[in-house]
């Protein structure tokens, strides 16, 4: 009974846990409820992934209504993998959240905080799991609205303006997506993804479908913070509470990348998106510009969280670059980097949360001497930074390796050069923090200690995952290649 209905329980259980988290009223209890929801989501996601890998895609009809009429959930290699990413990060971040949030958010707001975090996770899982395009919009808004509330809880008053800016830009993006969905519905009379994929080629010659395509491309690019639509991201990441930054940075944009894959590969089909509409001609230049300019911007930041936020926009460039090749290797590189970047940015932002907990600031200047006073936190930062750069034996290396290989496979060696320049720039901005932390003396009467274990252990779980999947990439790259084959409709 439970086993058959896992696809819907993946979303429904966290959705029902969210109001419970606010009703129990005690911060500790709300935390327990939210953590339970995250662990549940994690367990279900892993089960679903192993089931998909063993038996192929799962189709699920909600309420037993058959597909084009009812809402269908369809889980294949791609979204099973993304489900695992989102729920893993949630399951790691929530145990970490307790201490960090106690310091950064007022106590009477804590139950609401955990509710919003659970809702945000629910929305992201929902976008990933669903096979109905309007459902995507609904879940997108669930996750976005709770994300606005979460970001606004930051200590600095700039969190409010950052959240407002995100709300305006995010709503424009979501509305563009609705317009695109509406235009597709006008032409095909269906909202089901599989159904749309079948009917769209018949009407693709009209003017409406290219317009829908354009609206969707812009709307999704806004949500995934593709350069130059990234303006909301640095402010939002820099001023949100540390836990929120760690969670959103490693999940929200990843799910938006998943939406890009789903809409342009599964629904429109790679042939239409890339041969007729030439999506690659716009995605690739933007991705390359993002990699270079955003890495350069990161170098000039004085706040470490902001620095990492700009680096996130650059890293999104890598994912989009991989996708823009529209080859099995390229798309696999994009998906692989989606997973790997979640691990590295999660670890880095969690290390920043530890710094915030003890130092009360993430300005680079305030971090002098932390290499000695907070050795484990800074070691986590250094290893995460290595991964960001792409040093061998970390996951970052695996992503870059696949990306460069995909570029060379198509004979685009200048692209490969840009990827490597991006890595060099990453060395500079990571070094900026490392230099201050290790080679500047700590201020005299600091009294700064190592971060509490409850925060260090989750951070190190992600750091070790960075190393583990960097050394043994068979599992992740295998899944990524299978997912890319599914998306491109290539037999294996």
């Amino acid at each position: 009974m439970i086993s058959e209905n896992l696809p819907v329980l993946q979303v429904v259980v966290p959705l029902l846990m969210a109001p419970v988290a606010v009703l129990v009223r005690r911060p500790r209890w709300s935390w327990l409820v939210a953590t339970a929801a995250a662990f549940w989501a994690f367990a279900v996601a892993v089960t679903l992934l192993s089931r998909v890998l063993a038996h192929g895609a799962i189709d699920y009809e909600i309420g037993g209504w058959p597909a084009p009429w009812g809402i269908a959930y369809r889980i294949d290699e791609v979204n099973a993998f993304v489900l695992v990413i989102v729920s893993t990060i949630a399951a790691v971040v929530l145990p970490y959240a307790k201490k960090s949030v106690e310091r950064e958010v007022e106590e009477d707001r804590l139950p609401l905080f955990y509710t919003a975090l659970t809702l945000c996770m629910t929305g992201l899982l929902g976008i990933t799991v669903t096979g109905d395009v309007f459902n995507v919009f609904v879940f997108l808004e669930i996750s976005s609205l709770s994300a606005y509330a979460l970001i606004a809880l930051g200590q600095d008053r700039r969190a409010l303006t950052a959240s407002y800016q995100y709300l305006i830009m995010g709503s424009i993006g979501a509305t563009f997506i609705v317009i695109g969905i509406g235009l597709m519905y006008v032409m095909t009379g269906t909202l089901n993804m599989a159904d749309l994929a079948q009917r769209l080629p018949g009407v693709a010659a009209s003017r409406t479908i290219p317009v829908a395509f354009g609206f969707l491309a812009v709307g999704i690019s806004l949500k995934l913070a593709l350069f130059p639509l990234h303006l909301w991201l640095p402010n939002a990441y820099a001023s949100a509470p540390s836990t929120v930054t760690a969670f959103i940075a490693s999940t929200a944009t990843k799910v938006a990348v998943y939406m890009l894959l789903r809409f342009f590969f599964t629904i429109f089909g790679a042939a239409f998106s890339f041969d007729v509409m030439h999506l690659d001609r716009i995605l690739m230049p933007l991705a390359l510009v993002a990699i270079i300019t955003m890495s350069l911007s990161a170098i000039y930041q004085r706040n470490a969280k902001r620095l990492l936020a700009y680096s996130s926009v650059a890293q999104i460039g890598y994912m989009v670059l991989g996708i823009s090749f529209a080859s099995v290797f390229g798309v696999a590189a994009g998906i692989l980097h989606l997973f790997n970047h979640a691990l590295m940015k999660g670890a880095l932002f969690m290390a920043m949360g530890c710094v915030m907990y003890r130092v009360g600031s993430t300005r680079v200047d305030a971090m002098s001497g932390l290499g000695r006073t907070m050795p484990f936190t800074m070691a986590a930062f250094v290893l995460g930074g290595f991964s960001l750069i792409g040093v061998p034996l970390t996951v970052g290396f695996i992503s870059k390796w696949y990306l460069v290989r995909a570029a060379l496979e198509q004979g685009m060696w200048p692209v490969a050069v840009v990827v490597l320049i991006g890595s060099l720039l990453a060395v500079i901005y990571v070094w900026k923090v490392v230099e201050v932390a290790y080679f500047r003396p700590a201020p005299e009467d600091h009294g700064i200690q190592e971060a509490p274990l409850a925060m260090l252990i989750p951070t190190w779980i992600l750091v070790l995952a960075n190393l583990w999947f960097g050394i043994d990439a068979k599992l992740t790259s295998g899944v990524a290649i299978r997912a890319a084959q599914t998306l491109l409709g290539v037999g294996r």
Partner: protein
Amino acid sequence: MRLLGLYNYWIVVGLMMIGFYTMISRGNLVKKLVGLSVFQTSVMILYISMGKIFGGTAPILLEDGEHVVYTNPIPSVLILTAIVVGVATLAVGLALVVRIKEAYGTIEEDEIHEQDDVM
């Protein structure tokens, strides 16, 4: 005449641009939200008008098996969801504006930027 016959789309496009322009051009945070609302409303009209048929009624199955011309209910139902989402977005946005006013003492965008730059 053909262009006039598509007047519902002209209204949609007009409203959409008014909303979009308001969001871009106004520095007042409340006015921006009003622009956002107008923008979202135009999409609601787009959805509802495309499901409408002249003379169409509610999709009810008559007892004598007679067929009726009915308006497609799905766009309306979808938009019901979108309205709820729009209201929620507006509420969150206005709540943020209230808190911005408390923190900065103003809701003009350029004055807020000035205060942040000084810090």
